[in-house]
């Protein structure tokens, strides 16, 4: 399966992905074999069901949001490019910014934060409303928290972050609130070579 997979991925494609995402050659081939192993329909794209089949993701509290992040708007299939583009957010940040070709690499701190922001903000209005926050909070906590408590926590969250008084968290407010958090480390995976 490994050999068959790599022949389907052309060298030019690998180069393009490498330029766009910054992954190394071996990482790309490795992730490609993972992609094909998930692709049960063998049509070169993944649907949401393919992601659902991963058992660990099914019992991840934010599983659906994560899967959703792979599918750009109004599409149900993601090809390998899209797959890698999303995964590229999780590459560790390099210390030296030698990749000047891309305006801002996908794995920059801002883009990582944008990824996280988008997990909350489903309607893409660039604001996390109280409702959106409540939904994610509810997904993340157990049954022992009542609605009122959760509502208070959501209110407090918005209060802490909201600087312009619109009762929602904008992306800039989000960035500000997390400035002390080591986002680079929290949103990075060391991909195997």
């Amino acid at each position, binding site marked *: 399966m*490994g050999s068959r997979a790599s022949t389907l991925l052309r060298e030019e494609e690998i180069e393009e992905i490498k330029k766009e995402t910054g992954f190394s050659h071996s990482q790309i081939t490795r992730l490609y074999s*993972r992609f094909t*192993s998930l692709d049960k329909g063998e049509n070169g794209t993944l*649907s*949401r*069901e393919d992601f*659902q*089949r*991963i*058992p*660990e*993701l*099914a*019992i*991840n509290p*934010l*599983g*659906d*949001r*994560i899967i*959703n992040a792979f599918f750009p*708007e*109004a599409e*149900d299939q993601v090809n390998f490019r899209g797959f890698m583009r999303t*995964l590229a957010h*999780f590459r560790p940040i390099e210390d030296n910014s030698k990749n000047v070709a891309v305006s801002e690499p996908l794995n920059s701190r801002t883009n990582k934060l944008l990824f*996280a922001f988008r*997990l*909350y903000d*489903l*309607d*893409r209005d660039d604001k996390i409303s*109280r*409702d959106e926050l*409540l*939904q994610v909070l*509810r997904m*993340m*906590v*157990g*049954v022992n*928290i*009542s*609605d009122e408590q959760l*509502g208070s*926590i959501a*209110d*407090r969250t918005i209060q*802490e972050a909201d600087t312009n008084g619109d*009762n929602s968290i904008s992306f800039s407010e*989000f960035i500000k*609130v*997390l400035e*002390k*958090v080591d986002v680079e480390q*929290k*949103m990075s*995976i*060391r991909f*195997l070579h």
Partner: protein
Amino acid sequence: MGASVLFEAGTERGAFYMLLLLVLCCFGGKCELQESKPSAQTDFPGVEPFHNDFDEPQAFPDEERAHLPMFTMDYPRIQLPFEFTLWVLLASFAKIGFHIYNKITIWIPESCLLISIGLIVGAIMHSVKEEPPAVLNSNVFFLYMLPLIVLDNGYFMPTRPFFENAGTVLWYAVVGTVWNSVGIGISLFAICQFEVFGVQDINLQENLLFASIISTVDPVAALNVFDDIGVNEQTYIIIFGEGLFNDAVTVVLYNMFTFLAAMPVVESTDVILGTARFFVVAAGGVLFGLLFGFVAAFTTRFTHNVRQIEPLFVFMYSYLAYLVAECFAISSVMALITCAITMKHYVEENVSQRSCTTIRHVVKMLATISETLIFFFLGVVTITTEHEWNWAYILFTLLFTFIWRGIGILVLTQIINPFRTIPLNFKDQFGLAYGGLRGAICFALVFTLPDTINRKNLFVTASVAVIIFTVFIQGISIRPIVEYMNIRKTNKDTNTINMEVHTRMMEHVLSGIEDLCGQWSHYYWKDKFKKFNDRVLRRILIRDNKAESSILSLYKKLELQNAIGLLDSPLGDLSAAPSIVSLQDERNDASRPKKKFLAADVRKMHNILAKNMYKIRQTMSYTNKYNLPDESRTREILIRRHASIRRSLRAESFRELPSQNLPRSQKYYSLQPGGNLETAFPLRRRNHGGSEDMDHLSALTPRSSSHSLVPMRRLNTINETGNAGEQPAASSQPHSPPPVDALDMRGPGSLEGSIFRGRKAPVPAPKRHLSDRIDREEDLVDSERAGEAVRPPLLPPPRDWEPENPEPRENETLLRDSSQGPRGSGRS
């Protein structure tokens, strides 16, 4: 610690009664023991010749006596089982006693408490000059007590993390133990050379033998602490696996060194043979385990008519594996573990639900009892055996165990870190090193030393000292130390709620992405094995073999347990959130005054979040050694995914939607967990087909938000769920009458009432096929909603969904009817 301060009168009394009971049991035992002596104390006047015949039951009176004895007693007949039962009860009472006050077990690991009670009982027995039962001789421990513990470890071993970290685990277990043994042995031998300590007569082999015994790690107490202090899954599985496998290694080393110790001269060939023997032992153990595991799985394929004895097979086959391996002097521990791991998956699919539960409970029960007894007797025997105390030797032993373990972990980690996906950081290493407590195996092995070793008593004393030191000092202190280390890293008080929530969210995302990439496993082999498993093994070993995705089987199992458990457990309202009320509030946001949050409130929030937010991955499910794995979290998440579909659809209807993209993404708030994708998810399939149409739907949803209330519609889906067979027909029926109801229900006053009805999305007139989909989804969702007060409706939905096949004919009739309603109502 705070425990003493918080000690209430009630618990004090309870604890006192427990102690009293313990002492009574003790004395009871003592009295019984005394009566076993052939003395005339227990004679009754009418039964004089009796006491000389210990084996004969007191059936007939003697001819010499004329009258029938009213009351007789034959203690020796029942002596052995009776005493055994009393000891087990005593140990169990001790356990009950600890848990009366929960906080004790947080600060002091159970093993400490058990040893303390054992010490007390031992002191009592010693003072009345009693002999403890000979429980810890070689046979009893190795043939009866150890297999139970190992079976528990093997059966509940989390296989996925284990195999993903197998290399590291084996590295630490094997190489680490050998390193420790050799290091400690040689250092002690060096110490022995000094005349001043007086231990010159211990030669190298004996030192090595002793060192191999001492280096066995028993991580029970460490494991209990680890999940609370946030050690990650990696470290957990390493400690777990190391504790498991170094038993095997130690036994091999022990046998080897015993053999060598008996020989006057050691040649290099012996060392090489020893190494070769290690591989034979390990591989042989695994082979035997696999063999018995497969046979057990195969047997359970045919047991569907004899459900009552199904659990028996698990125990018998594992025990057989153990005994046969012992017979051939290969690693019985490895055999048992392999057997349990192999057996578990196939057996659990073949046997009935009850048998499965029984097996789990009995395994846990036997293991807990065995472990309790071991620690208990450790305390007892400590007092009652002869000791030889040699300050220098014992202190140096302690010192060397620390040093060598610390160095060992450091060096080994340095070597293996480059090969690992996630390297072990310093905190992990410290946890590994400091968590290396010694325990029961160590103790048992030292007792079984052959008596040819002339300093055996010294060894016994030294091991007991090391065990007690590590268990008490390290076991109690590991928690505060690691908490201190944790606190130094994350200064909790300055964390805002935002940081706490968002960082946990990011951690979940990260672990999700890692699982998605298959970062841990070498999934190539895993895929291969899975294919082999599906094609060959499952066909042979499992009775009803349907190729199911693991999610579906997990889901089914959980739904089943859920349905059984939900009826009596208060689960809280998982399915309602954000509730209608809070969503209402969203509209009143501007008008609501800003709440003031005091510092106390914020602290409370921090506490609530810290206690209730889900931890990453499933570390909770297997961290507590004394409990069965906890599947409640998985259950909650899966149930919630049902609910969030409903939530997403409801939110869809009255959100402000500036962009067209909302419905698409909102629809996937929560997808049905796995399942037979060909039939069970018409939802998704339909959506695939009509992607562009959904955008139009979104444009229409703002309509309803202009109303203060979402129009609700009753769907008679509750009837449908009863008759699973007539889905398509039944579901189409109720759609015609409801639109009329919707008109009645509209209005601010009926907010409460409308909660219990279905919700109808505003139907766009031209886009008829869309509303059908929404309706269908609502049906499925609302079938749960409609049964709000009753729990069981949660169960039907998955089966309910299956027969739902979109048929164009029905669509049109449906749409025509439902589209009449809103159009007729003039909402457009």
